[in-house]
């Protein structure tokens, strides 16, 4: 069809931060299809210069509220790598518990509040309060339990307080952990399984679209990698975290204030679907069953299914949190002080899986423990090229639909990636010329 089509969605809603979708087609030839990032710059790398290792995580946490735990933990592991600070088994377990809480909260927020309104033909979650009150209440309950983990273990779910280099400034009490466990088993687990049923019922509204791409995540020999592991590419296998720059290869494009990334191909995918594709065999039976019920199979190439992979992870996080709490209590909670005596100075590189995908921090410290250079590579930035490539394939496939339908399909595509634009413009603002 020799169609002219001009779509511009200005300040896309229900995503974190400001982005525009731009599609131009002339005489049936696609001239432009991309997500423009137009958020103002934050200049975090510049802010970090000269700051002490006690402040680094406090500052980087403020790159993004919704991803604050992720930035905080990645900052801590990076600082610990640079300064040679060992952490205890208890610290590692408490951090893993926090990662589960943050992943659960973020995945539930996205699936219910940001993505589900599209499946139900609503503009936001608010009208759903009248039409689907039980579902909204369930989402709120799950978010609350997830945030309880953050509030109790880290002092505050948004911009955590207690996680510091080398450990925690406060260790939760046994009774507090047992109360979280009770809520996880009595509330979050049944709610999580109900969520699977709800998403199964909505699965028909998920667009059928496939584009095989490169999937990149962490991988760990013994567990579904979230807190630690090595980099894994579905194209080329394992790469040590220290070599992350070989993977991310950031470059500037004219339509985005955030840099793009590529590795073996023109673009790659990070996030729940990449983790699922790379590591699904390490999930427990319940999460596997959830995936099967919702029609998520290994090697899934439909980016819209990222939301479904998030729900599968929510089930995993609920159950694995219970296992971690049991282990912490079995080991006996110790009132440890953080280990903050550097054994070396220099460069450190750290990586975690945060809800939206693999995150890298890279700091260099001088011998007073102050930062001389900092770099952060954010999941959403890594996904931008992949989103553009999806659009380029998708638009011609649905070109016979109405402009409104095409626009909705594109908005849903971008939302499926759960982009965090606040995060991705920590660094750059490029004024772009059209």
């Amino acid at each position: 069809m020799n169609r002219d089509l001009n779509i511009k969605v200005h300040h896309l809603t229900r995503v974190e931060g400001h982005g525009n979708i731009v599609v131009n087609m002339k005489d049936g030839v696609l001239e432009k299809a991309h997500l423009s990032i137009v958020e103002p710059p934050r200049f975090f790398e510049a802010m970090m210069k000269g700051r002490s290792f006690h402040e680094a995580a406090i500052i980087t946490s403020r790159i993004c509220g919704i991803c604050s735990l992720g930035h905080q933990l990645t900052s801590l592991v990076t600082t610990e790598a640079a300064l040679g600070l060992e952490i205890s088994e208890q610290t590692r377990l408490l951090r893993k518990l926090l990662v589960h809480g943050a992943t659960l909260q973020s995945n539930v927020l996205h699936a219910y509040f940001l993505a589900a309104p599209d499946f139900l033909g609503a503009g936001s979650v608010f009208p759903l309060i009248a039409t689907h009150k039980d579902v909204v209440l369930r989402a709120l309950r799950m978010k609350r339990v997830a945030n309880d983990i953050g509030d109790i273990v880290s002092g505050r779910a948004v911009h955590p307080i207690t996680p510091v280099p080398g450990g925690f400034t406060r260790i939760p009490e046994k009774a507090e952990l047992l109360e979280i466990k009770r809520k996880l088993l009595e509330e979050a687990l049944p709610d999580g399984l109900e969520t699977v049923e709800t998403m199964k019922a909505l699965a028909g509204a998920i667009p059928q679209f496939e584009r095989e791409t490169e999937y990149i995540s962490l991988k760990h020999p013994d567990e579904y990698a979230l807190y630690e592991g090595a980099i894994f590419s579905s194209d080329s296998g394992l790469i040590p975290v220290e070599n992350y720059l070989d993977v991310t290869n950031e470059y500037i494009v004219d339509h985005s204030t955030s840099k793009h990334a590529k590795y073996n191909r023109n673009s790659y995918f990070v996030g729940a679907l990449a983790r699922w594709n790379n590591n699904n065999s390490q999930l427990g039976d319940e999460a596997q069953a959830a995936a099967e019920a919702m029609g998520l199979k290994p090697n899934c190439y439909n980016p819209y299914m990222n939301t479904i992979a998030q729900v599968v992870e929510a089930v995993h996080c609920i159950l694995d949190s219970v296992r971690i709490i049991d282990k912490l209590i079995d080991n006996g909670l110790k009132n440890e002080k953080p280990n903050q005596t550097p054994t070396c100075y220099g460069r450190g590189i750290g990586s975690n899986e945060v809800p939206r995908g693999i995150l890298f921090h890279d700091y260099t410290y001088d011998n007073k423990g102050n930062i001389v250079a900092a770099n952060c590579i954010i999941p959403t930035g890594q996904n931008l090229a992949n989103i553009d490539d999806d659009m380029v394939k998708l638009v011609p496939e649905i070109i016979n639909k109405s402009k409104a339908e095409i626009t909705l399909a594109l908005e849903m595509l971008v939302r499926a990636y759960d982009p965090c634009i606040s995060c991705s413009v920590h660094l750059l603002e490029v004024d772009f010329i059209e």
Partner: protein
Amino acid sequence: MKPQVAFFDFTSCEGCQLNKLNLENDLLDILKHIDIVEFREAMDDKADFYDIAFIEGSISSPSCVERIHDIRRRCTTLVAIGSCAVNGGVNAMKNLHPIDEVRETVYGKDKYLFATLPAMAVSAVVKVDYEVRGCPMTQQDFLKLLISLVLGKEPPKYGSPVCVECKLKENECLYNRGMVCLGPITRAGCDAICPSFGQFCTGCRGLLDNSNLDGMLELMTSHGISLDEAKKRMLLYNSNEVQL
């Protein structure tokens, strides 16, 4: 009619807005008393007029300046939420470096390609009627203000330092544990949440009026950190307020 309420984000981490969505237990009750007419992070709708506009984030680019003037024209009451909006917050740390140097760190040789402004408080550009401090603002503080506005009452004011709240909670002072803390010069209202969790006060709620900054620096340096470190600590959230 219920007040028409809108939320806007400028240069920020969106953490303050998120904290509001994290009011899970109260969210549905809140929605009985207000109509949210614009909230880009959570909904598609847009409105022309607002009784109350909540502003998150600093003003840091020419387009921010335009947008905040437009919002001010279309609202009755304007509230700055969170440190970024109240005094520039962490964003204002970039103002400490010469703007050229900041650009160069980020853009390298292309540093002159892009326009940027210092990170400013919302009140540096338009009239702000009320503020909710903190990084992030606390949910309770936000609720108190919202309830006051809905009921037409005067919202709470905070005139004492964090130390007062910290003592009320019977915390051991962190200065006795070898740490330095900004509690003595920082405006209360957070229930001393950080010291209560064993972490130093970062000063996120901004300076108390007439704080003794020299005395603060002396206390900090007498507890083992250099003057340079102490100044940096003080500037973390106060770059637009403190001249050192």
